[in-house]
């Protein structure tokens, strides 16, 4: 197991190098730092001095890969590539384009993100799986038919519409909870109820349908027929046999998402004013703060790869047939 995990982590390194090179190419080769400076300072009326000043304040005034004017190892380290890209590997995200420390911001903002994303994830799983089991229990009846129709209809509605409609109905017409905002600590719950509920509802269609198809695939297996032949009740068959075995494909999709919960949700956080990493990214996009975007891309891929490793480990826990070596 340990050998397997360390091999997986070693395997992650070339992928992270790839991600790193990709973002570096996107932001420093496709566009030169001069282009970025002009974009920030307003494309037309900008002097070369202004561009140089902007670059030196943010450390973009160095050569890309090789600095001839420095000595020994500094030839390589005093470059944009080393400072802006290589340092990401030790999670040194540097400063954003408006001068704040990105690492510090991330450490602070991941908790509100988690406060939103974790309940959506846990409650969502429970709701989706129960709904899917309900449909499977009433298989080939009108409940199943209309349930699937409901799923397809809900899938066809854009996520934005759920948010706008939810905010409008609950926040503005019914006046039950505040439309947006956030408070640290336990009082945050009243700001989180609405986004969490909307988050769960907006995923109901596609997730329930997906889980339903997994359950239906299991329900045709031999062991289910055996269980029924033994005279077990349908509820017992569903919960004790089908659900347990269907957990394996469900885990594939679910566990990989757990580390990414720290990243929150771009849409929800910015609509509801939750000061998490999602709204951090949106703000960065709107102010064209490329340093933050680069950091978030790298962080996102680290968390995704972590999720993959976790998925493999969780397999060994739920499926005794799987051994990692």
């Amino acid at each position: 197991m340990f050998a397997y995990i360390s091999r997986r982590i070693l395997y992650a390194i070339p992928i992270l190098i790839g991600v790193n090179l990709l973002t570096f190419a996107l932001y420093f080769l496709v566009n030169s730092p001069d282009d970025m400076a002009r974009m920030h300072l307003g494309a037309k009326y900008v002097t070369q001095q202004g561009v140089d000043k902007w670059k030196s304040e943010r450390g973009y005034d160095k050569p890309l890969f090789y600095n001839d004017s420095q000595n020994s190892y500094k030839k390589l380290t005093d470059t944009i590539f080393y400072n802006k890209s290589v340092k990401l590997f030790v999670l040194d995200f540097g400063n954003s384009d408006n001068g704040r420390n990105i690492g510090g911001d991330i450490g602070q903002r991941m908790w509100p993100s988690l406060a939103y994303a974790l309940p959506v994830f846990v409650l969502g799983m429970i709701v989706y799986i129960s709904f899917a089991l309900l449909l499977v229990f009433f298989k080939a009846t009108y409940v199943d038919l209309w349930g699937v129709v409901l799923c397809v209809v809900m899938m066809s509605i854009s996520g934005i519409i759920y948010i706008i409609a939810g905010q409008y109905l609950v926040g503005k017409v019914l006046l039950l909870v505040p439309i947006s905002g956030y408070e640290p600590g336990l009082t945050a719950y009243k700001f989180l109820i609405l986004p969490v509920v909307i988050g769960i509802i907006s995923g109901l269609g596609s997730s329930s349908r997906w889980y339903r198809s997994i359950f239906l695939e299991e329900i045709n297996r031999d062991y289910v027929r055996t269980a029924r032949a033994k005279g077990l009740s349908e509820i017992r068959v569903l919960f004790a046999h089908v659900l347990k075995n269907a957990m394996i494909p469900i885990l594939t999709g679910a566990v990989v998402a757990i580390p990414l919960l720290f990243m929150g949700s771009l849409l929800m956080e910015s609509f509801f004013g939750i000061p998490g990493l999602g709204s951090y990214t949106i703000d960065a996009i709107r102010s064209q703060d490329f340093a933050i975007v680069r950091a978030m891309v790298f962080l996102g891929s680290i968390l995704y790869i972590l999720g993959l490793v976790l998925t493999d480990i969780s397999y060994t826990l739920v499926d005794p047939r799987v051994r990692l070596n």
Partner: protein
Amino acid sequence: MANDLLKVLTQPYWIKVFVILVALSSLYAGYPLIFDSKAEYLTTDLLIYFLVCCLIVFISYIRQQPHLSGPWKNVFKNKIAMSSAVVLCFFIIVGLMDSVHFRKADISNSNLTETHYSTNMLSLLDVSLDYISRNSEKTYSAPFAIFSYAKENFTNDEGVKYRAYPRLKHAGVHLASEDDYLSDVISKSISGLGIGVVISMALIGITLVLLKRSRASSYLAIIAALIKNKLDLPWGIMLLTSAIIIIFSSCLFYASAFYHVMGTDKVGQDVFYLTLKSIRTGLVIGTLTTLIMLPFAIALGVMAGYYKGLVDDVIQYIYTTLNSIPGILLIVAVMLSIDVYIENHSAFFETAIERADIKLLALCGVLGITSWTGLCRLLRGEVFKLRELEYIQAARSLGVSDTKIIISHIVPNVMHIVLIVVVLDFSGLVLAEAVLAYIGVGVDSSIISWGNMINSARLELAREPVVWWSLISAFSFMFALVLAANLFSDAIRDAFDPRMQGIK
């Protein structure tokens, strides 16, 4: 191999297909003569034209292969699938009309020897909807309203200033007095309804005549079969769907000549017109994204599965790397970079429309990257299995080259996976456009799209009284398209996915 291809292409069937393609192309190249105008080919227009040609070739190919056209027959028998296909057809017609652009000859300068063309680029849709789009108001107005949303200052005959809702310039101008308003709205709707009924009756009549010609039975027998759904296709439900759409839209189109049926937006543009214009953007994002990504996904996926070894490792590395970046962040990162690039190289593009068009294409490309990896992985797995099958082994031991095995034995046998992924992706891509518009990396703000409409409409909900019409119009059209696409793709998946056969 070239010989084989030549032999196939000189068959009468393929010559017919070729003639259709040539006719289509010459129509596309020659239509400006009809309008006395100059054709403009945007990059996305050309790609849509290419896509249509590909579709024609694909359909012709499928029709010739019984084992490939078999599953399609199941799709065609499915009532829900066919009625959604009809809905999709109406959307596609509007989208295609909006993809034919030209500039009209400028008549005001007719004394010059050479013809000048207006700077305004129009599409076929713009020309047909001219009677709606030219009726701009000052600001918001509710659907079917004859008064503006905002009060204005007036001075009456005695010089006293007062504030009131002004009459709209282009809505209900034919009304003699404001008391006729309600009866006029109703009578205009009924007239529209009547026109719709006439058109759909004509459509049903033509279909009946055609059905009778292909089958030697009486009209009564055909109508009975139609209602009982005993024909080869569910014609009954298809005609019903078309009739509903035709009646509904003729109401809207007819009443549009007198009122703003879906109101006007902040700058007074007719919302119905904007919603129709958005159809093209949605379709472009849903289809061109796939068109751009398909060659890469198929080539790399098949190569990885077929050659294994180093090739497989390299391709796997590429898609794992791209896949490990969360999709939305990848789109954001690439689009921001492209924004800067376009901003700094604006000299490349002649007009703002061209610039927006290239950005739309770039967005399709980026969305393509995010959906490409999944297809690539599926194909790799399937080819892994296929290459060990006897018929491939036999071909290999007979000395058939790898290229030929891939093209004639492997690719046709993985096409069902490609098809399923393509149709399943479509609706997701249309929905993604709205999200991207909100985030701020979507299509250019100069392009009319549902995403841009919803994004600007969300702030209007805070007004008092609420401005709900742009949101509802954009939402309902988008919903109709995505729902139809979802239902249609479900039928395709059920018909093609062997795993789904036992389940249902």
